[in-house]
């Protein structure tokens, strides 16, 4: 069980990530994937500021744990975490998606310290994670590979190729986390190409499944710790989340899959976050 101090610390980090998303990485009139970034803020905070072994001063640390953002469009939340952790100066966030920027529209390992792979063409992150986990296993490294997948992304067939491969090769140094916010770019997943039921599919593919509230830090840490104890098969954490979480007008609103805030909305967003401060 995580201590209350740890939970408080990570909740503050999740808030800091949302602050960066709203103030440094988007702002008024600047299009960005606010929804899917905010839905995964607690998961990303728990990994970068508690669970993972990593070193912002030495991004190539050989025995670091790896994090891959298969749903690469939510790059904002990863950039916020990397900046907050000290991988690069926070000023870089203001230049996101501008010509020559360190922070591209999707994660780019060739430009951004702390990014482990080029992701964003959906459905590929789990396969990359499998390859990394196999490579680490061949080298006898104890590192873990974490990969965050969107639930809309589960429509990609390659996810299920990788799911089969991971259980066939008993890749137990791999943890997939599904950010189940139930929305995709154009609306509700269940009304488009329904990827439900989610958990039974993973179970059928031979994975250990854990269902949690993806905004409950204690539950996230509990699931990540449980995954450490699962041997001989990969683990997937199905995290129930709210797209746009904590930004009132963006919550469950497909318009903020990749939307831009009006000046009024930006004020509301800042006020929403301020209310969460202790």
């Amino acid at each position, binding site marked *: 069980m995580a201590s209350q101090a740890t939970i408080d610390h990570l909740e503050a980090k999740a808030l800091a990530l949302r602050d960066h998303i709203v103030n440094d990485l988007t702002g008024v009139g600047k299009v960005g994937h606010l929804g899917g970034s905010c839905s995964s803020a607690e998961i990303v905070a728990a990994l970068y500021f508690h669970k993972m072994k990593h070193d912002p001063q030495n991004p190539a640390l050989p025995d670091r744990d790896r994090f891959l953002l298969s749903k690469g469009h939510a790059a904002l939340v990863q950039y916020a975490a990397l900046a907050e952790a000290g991988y690069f100066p926070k000023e870089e966030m203001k230049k996101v998606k501008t010509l020559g920027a360190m922070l591209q529209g999707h994660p780019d390992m060739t430009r951004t310290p702390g990014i482990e792979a080029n992701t964003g063409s959906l459905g590929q992150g789990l*396969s990359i994670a499998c*390859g990394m986990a196999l490579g680490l296993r061949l*080298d006898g490294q104890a590192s873990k590979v974490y990969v965050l997948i969107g639930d809309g992304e589960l429509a990609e067939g390659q996810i299920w190729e990788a799911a089969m*491969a991971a259980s066939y090769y008993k890749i137990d140094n791999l943890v997939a986390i599904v950010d189940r916010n139930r929305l995709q770019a154009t609306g509700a997943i269940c009304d488009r190409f329904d990827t439900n039921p989610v958990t039974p599919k993973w179970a059928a593919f031979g994975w250990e499944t854990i269902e949690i509230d993806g905004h409950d830090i204690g539950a996230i840490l509990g699931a990540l710790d449980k995954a450490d104890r699962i041997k001989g098969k990969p683990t997937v954490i199905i995290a129930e989340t709210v797209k746009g979480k904590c930004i009132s007008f963006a919550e469950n609103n497909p318009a903020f899959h990749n939307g831009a805030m009006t000046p009024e909305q930006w004020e509301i967003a800042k006020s929403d976050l301020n209310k969460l401060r202790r």
Partner: protein
Amino acid sequence: MATKSQRQAYGEALVELGKENKNIVALEADLGKSTMSILFQQQFPERYFEMGIAEANMASTAAGLALTGKIPFINSFAVFATGRCYDQLRQTIAIAGLNVNICGSSAGLSDFGDGSTHQSVEDMATMRVIPGMTVLVPVDAIETRKMVRAMAAHPGPCYIRINRNDLPFFTDEESEFEIGKLYPVREGGDVIVFANGVMVSKAVEAAEALAGEGISVKVVNVSTVKPLDKQAVIAMAKGFRAVVTAEEHSVIGGLGSAIAEALSEIKDIPLAIVGIEDRFGTSATNYDELLVYYGLTADAVKARIKKIIGKE
């Protein structure tokens, strides 16, 4: 003429390399008995990953392995290794410049019986257009072995196009192979033919026939289609009456296009491209029958040479 299978040489080269470097790994999509990656599996089962009939996952898994310092070779038929996982090769492997090596086996028409779905007429084009992708087309088994070694040592992604059938030798153990170099296999003074793969032997055959007719033909093995040394192409072509290219591939986007791109910087050298005219493959009872059907013969090369210099 002595011949040997490129795919056998490929599998043997992988094994050799695997003995020297523990970071070499191989991934296969259930065609190991054809691609000959099975030889690597027999020696290094722990470094061989049978990824099932799922090429896209195979390619991205290779990216992950490369990101932990491994040097992966992914194996399938050329049509699948390039077509089924084009996006995977592009997005994670090529954009990041990872050392993932792609073996496109049974390339061109060489899988003669299996027909259009299994014959690759466009793989040189699709691989060539990816920024940073090296594209190699071995002329024989010996060059294949040297290429496998060069691919592993090369930092970015490399594609090798392997023929299924036994092909004659144009190189020997002593001859050099370096990525990006052009290798003349026959000297001549009137027309220069840039060819690769099986078409090198057809071009040489055409050149020998034309020698009897007083036409002197130089033949160059362009076993690296990309990166192509444009200045070297221009320097070689200068002084010839015409340039002809010959490839077992669509006339769109392959070797002929690459040579045309290079020569577009100079004027006054006519160019003819011998290849497959914007068509898919088809089944046949043997390889030679298909080469004849698609006009990939010494006679076809000879006719194009004579036509372009006005000696029809």
